[in-house]
């Protein structure tokens, strides 16, 4: 189903998608999207949605199953509390990606904003995954409680740091893999930097292979630099951070 979204209000668009999905439609191509919120949010079916244009905030919130491809940048709040499905963004993404995400995958070709993967969690086989090809801003993996977060910094310029400050602040579960290492000054107090073991390498390779397939990157090139992994070590001493 092809939908011309120019000038269309988000409620109308999302109703069309939900109703058609309910009636058995499995593939949606949305043209001229610009700023429509909540696309794919709360959908429980394994439908495919291709978005041409910049989708609005809260893309794929509470999503449970769909595959979403965005052929542009994405804004803030993608995959809030997402449970299952996949999001592929052929561009950059904004702040607070995967907030409380509890399953499914997000692949972002470019950079990600502030607070990526904040409060991600996992339970048994429900393990959310975020892979970003670019760099991240401050508070990446903040309060992360589970899941896998991979930062590649593939096209970063010169000495540009691959992460922002307060990396892994308050982290108490899950794992972060970073290509090329991290600046110790950027680290939150609750994480330690470790080398990858064989199990890590296997896991990483699996997700990188998928990432490279989506965006046409070379897997060997992506794996050519050594990675480090971050794991949580302790509890939260940041009660005062937001007040001076």
């Amino acid at each position, binding site marked *: 189903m092809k939908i011309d979204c*120019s*000038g*269309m*209000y*988000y*409620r*109308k668009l999302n109703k069309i998608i939900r109703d058609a999905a309910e009636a058995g439609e499995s593939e949606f191509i949305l043209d001229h999207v*610009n*700023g429509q*919120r909540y696309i794919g949010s709360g959908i429980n079916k394994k439908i495919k949605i291709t978005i041409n*244009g*910049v989708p*609005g*905030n809260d893309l794929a919130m509470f999503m449970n199953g769909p595959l979403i491809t965005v052929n542009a*940048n994405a*804004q*803030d709040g993608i995959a809030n509390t997402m449970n299952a499905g996949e999001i592929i963004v052929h561009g*950059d993404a*904004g*702040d607070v990606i995967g907030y409380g995400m509890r399953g499914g995958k997000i692949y972002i070709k470019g950079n990600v*904003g*502030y607070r990526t993967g904040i409060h991600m969690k996992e339970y048994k086989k429900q393990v959310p995954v975020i892979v970003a090809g670019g760099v991240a*801003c*401050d*508070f990446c993996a903040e309060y992360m409680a589970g899941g896998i977060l991979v930062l590649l910094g593939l096209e970063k310029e010169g000495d540009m740091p691959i992460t*922002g*400050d307060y990396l892994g602040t308050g982290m108490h579960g899950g794992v972060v893999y970073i290509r090329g290492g991290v600046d110790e*000054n950027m680290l939150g107090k609750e994480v330690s930097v470790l080398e990858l073991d064989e199990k890590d390498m296997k896991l990483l390779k699996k997700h990188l292979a998928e990432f490279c397939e989506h965006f046409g990157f070379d897997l060997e090139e992506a794996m050519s630099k050594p990675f480090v992994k971050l794991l949580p070590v302790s509890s939260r001493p940041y009660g005062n*951070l*937001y*007040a*001076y």
Partner: protein
Amino acid sequence: MKDNCYIPSGCSISGMINESGRRFDGSSVIKSIALMHDRGNGLGGGFAAYGVYPRHAEQFAFHMMFDHIEAKEACEEYFKDRFDIVLDEEMPTRAGGAFEEETSGRYGEYGGHPITNPPILWRYFMDVPKSKTSFVSENEYIVKNVMEVNSRIDGAFVASSGKNMGAFKGVGYPEDIGVFYKLDEYKAYIWTAHGRFPTNTPGWWGGAHPFCLLDWSIVHNGEISSYGINKRYLEPHGYKLELRTDTEVIAYLFDLLVRKHNLPMEMAIKALASPFWKDIDRMPEREQRIATAIRQVYGGALLNGPFSVILGHSRGMIGFNDRIKLRPMTCARADDMLYMASEEAAIREIAPDLDRVWSPKAGTPVIGKLSEEVI
């Protein structure tokens, strides 16, 4: 609102400058802010525009709001003794105006909300008599009088007081406010806009953004948690905080730091959104000494809390965020245009083909400057 079941919240801001000084009408800024309709709740909308009064470019343009006719009379009595009024007239408005550019699409869904019950809106183009500036500068004289009107004359408020610029604001959705004020009939080289979702302070005409003083204008998404400290810091310098909202302090802080203290813009922003001490400790020595001095001298100007802000002035437009990026801002360039908005889509709506799109780092200003004279 048609449907009051929930309100997705968060103010919206949008701004654009033509750095070559080319003036363009207000319809594009209205379209941009209208795209973010759902970030506001209809309790405040407004615009700042630079270059709108070329025929009166030498006079101070006072945009006034009066609750009742007595306030207007009292204010005019006050002005009469202190200024040479070159021209005064009612602000041109479309009574009951509402945005209905595209009734078949998204705008039709949320509908135009006609602007009702405006205060008396009047503008005055005024010169400062030579005799008044023997001991103070013209600008200082204006600031003093703006503070006096806002605090002393019951029911009278100054919406803006700069040269060749103005604030057009009120209670309503911003796109409807824009139509109400006929902004499609004005041309400016800088436009900023705000859609309000008031949280801690009332939604009233004088409390809508932008907040202006001289040629400074501020639109702001967020809240200034340090309002009390900033207010106490500003008051001994002669500023009177009368508009019942936090954002007002930002406009006055720029006036104090940049106009009166001559700080370079980048330094003023370092005072308002200072680096953290732990980051200052890691700076090279010279930078460290400057950053330390700024924090020590201007501790009372430090803005705490979440914010994204667009500052306008007659020579440029500056966007910046709080230090830990608790509010959104996206910037973009296309030729000699610089855009800033809460969402990328609000920029794409009016400029689909952009040379570059990026989100500035927390606490780091994005500065647009007029490179030439206004055309």
